[in-house]
């Protein structure tokens, strides 16, 4: 639920409750005031009638309301003495409404010329049901109007107010460590947004610093390891050119060079892995997977021939993807290399490329591999000295980086399926 609607939900509930309570109180108060005013009027009227009766006794014989709004009846003294003024609601037939309508009636008693009379004065009054109905409709309209205006305010004014926030959010979504584009927060007068912008900028600065530090560390580590390796290998290469060496010496030097080469490869693979995981490969482009396969299969042909492995390539579709070209080559190289290395004499490697996936199937041992563990670092069979144990870890790092799915199946051989989005 969006923030705007979220506040609206709570606001509408609160408003509903407040308006309802307010309506009840308002109704009671208003009615109270109306009665008060009516009763005052009736009291005044009573006094006027009594005064008039003192001057004109004919009205004492007015025993029906009829056209006027009072009636007078004689009362025995005993009842009249205990009579007090009573205001009450009652019903009376109204000609115009053709219905009984509520009226307010004052029942009183007075004495004139030693005689006692009962006086009833009426006044038409508010129709309560109509009042409630009117009030209800007014309130509903008020409620709707308020919600509508809040909606409008939310959508226009608040949206405008929250603009710096959404702008920042968009930029954060796009943000990638190591890319040059920095976050540029929008100017805002709102204190919270200002603080948010500052906090995000600070956080990013620190993260970038860490990232740069790490990058620097990887490069320094590379430098520190590569140079001694370079010196050792090159010195041995020079040494092996000396004329006074026996064949045994040469073999020994050759073995040391091979061992150092292994160390070099291991170092290179570890660096590559860190670089991928640190997202240091940024320059993505449209990559033609079919072409890379064709090219690499050609590169591997001598190796495959030497291992007596037949490589077949089938194109069911053209596969393009958007990634770093170097990584794409490394990715595919690792599949091909694995498929050739872990194969049998007279075995085969079958590559199939579809428009959104490719599979590399190879003959090999009859034991299915552990589909989870093969992608872990240094997971390898102990006797393979030429395998760094990082090949599939690199594959996994690359597939994680680009959101590709890599699946291992045992299907009359080992099958790797890579699906692109």
């Amino acid at each position, binding site marked *: 639920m969006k923030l705007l609607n979220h506040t609206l939900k709570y606001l509408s509930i609160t408003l509903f409750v407040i308006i309802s309570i307010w309506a009840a109180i308002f109704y009671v108060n208003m009615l109270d005031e109306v009665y008060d005013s009516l009763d005052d009027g009736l009291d005044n009227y009573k006094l006027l009638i009594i005064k008039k009766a003192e001057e004109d006794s004919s009205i004492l014989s007015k025993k029906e309301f009829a056209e006027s709004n009072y009636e007078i009846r004689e009362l025995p003294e005993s009842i009249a003495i205990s009579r007090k003024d009573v205001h009450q609601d009652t019903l009376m037939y109204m000609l115009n409404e053709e219905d009984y309508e509520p009226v307010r009636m004052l029942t009183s008693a007075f004495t004139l010329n030693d005689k006692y009379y009962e006086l009833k004065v009426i006044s038409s009054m508010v129709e309560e049901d109509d009042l409630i109905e009117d009030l209800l409709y007014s309130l509903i309209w008020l409620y709707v109007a308020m919600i509508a205006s809040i909606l409008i305010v939310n959508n226009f004014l608040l949206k405008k107010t929250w603009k710096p926030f959404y702008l920042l959010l968009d930029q954060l979504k796009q943000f990638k460590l190591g890319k040059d584009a920095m976050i540029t927060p929008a100017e805002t007068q709102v204190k919270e947004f200002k603080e948010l912008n500052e906090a995000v900028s600070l956080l990013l600065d620190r993260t970038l610093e860490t990232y740069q530090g790490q990058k620097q560390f990887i*490069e320094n580590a*590379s*430098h520190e390891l*590569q*140079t001694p*390796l*370079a*010196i050792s*290998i*090159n*010195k041995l*290469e*020079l040494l*092996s*050119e000396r004329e006074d060496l026996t*064949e045994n010496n*040469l*073999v020994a*030097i*050759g*073995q040391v*060079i*091979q061992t150092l*080469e292994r160390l*070099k*490869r291991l170092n*290179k693979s570890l*660096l590559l892995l860190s670089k991928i995981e640190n997202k240091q490969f940024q*320059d993505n482009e449209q990559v033609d997977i079919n072409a890379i396969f064709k090219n*690499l299969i050609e*590169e*591997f042909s*001598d*190796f495959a*021939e*030497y*291992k007596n492995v037949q490589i077949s390539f089938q194109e069911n579709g053209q596969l393009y993807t958007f990634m770093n070209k170097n990584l794409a*080559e490394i990715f595919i*190289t690792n599949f091909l*290399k694995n498929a*050739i*290395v872990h194969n049998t004499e007279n075995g085969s490697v079958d590559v199939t490329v579809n428009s959104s996936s490719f599979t590399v199937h190879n003959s090999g041992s009859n034991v299915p591999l552990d589909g989870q563990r093969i992608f872990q670092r240094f997971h390898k069979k102990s006797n393979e000295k*030429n*395998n*760094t144990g990082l*090949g599939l870890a690199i594959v996994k790092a690359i597939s994680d980086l680009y959101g590709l799915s890599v699946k291992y199946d045992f299907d009359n051989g080992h099958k790797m399926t890579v699906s692109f989005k």
Partner: protein
Amino acid sequence: MKILIIEDETELMEVIRQSLEKENFRVESAGDYDSALNKIISFDYDCILLDIMLPGGSGLDILQELKNLDKSDNVIIISAKDSLDDKLTGLELGADDYLTKPFHIAELNARIKSVLRRKSFGGKNTVELANVKLDLDDRTLHIDNQPLPLNRKEFDILSYMVVNKNRLVNKTSLAEHVWGDHMDEADDYEFIYSQIKNLRKKLKESQAGIEIQAVYGLGYKLVVL
């Protein structure tokens, strides 16, 4: 031919110097930023090997200075940083090549000779040895002026061996040069033998004055018969 090595690692510099002196080059060296700057301003070199990380400054600044002096076209950057940024900056500043440490001596040799060929023979990119003539631009081989067709890998092997004549070329070095970096982990590079076998046969049949010898356990050596 005069070559300047700008490299702060004394041992590495010494190995490169020894290797280059075997090729009869005159070699000078500089171990830090200031002495390197002095040398490039005072003298002319046919080829400069330039390390990027130096005490006292960056090799890229030296390259910039060389560019200002219009001398940057014969520079080969040798760096432990396999950094695309540095590579691009270096090449933009006019460097001829970029080699990542650790490299093989034979590879360095091949790159240096490529720079020197471009500088010396008026753009004619050919190598001649005995009765063998290689044109590296057209990728053709002539033996006694008779063309001998080679496949891509055979040609790459032969040209690499020819520029490293009389030197022992490590099989890893040869594999990386011809097959690319992809072939690591590939069973001690024994697979390169079949291409070499074919090449040897072709050379022998055409009575070439050169021969590729195997050095057991290590690699190959091209000698003039």
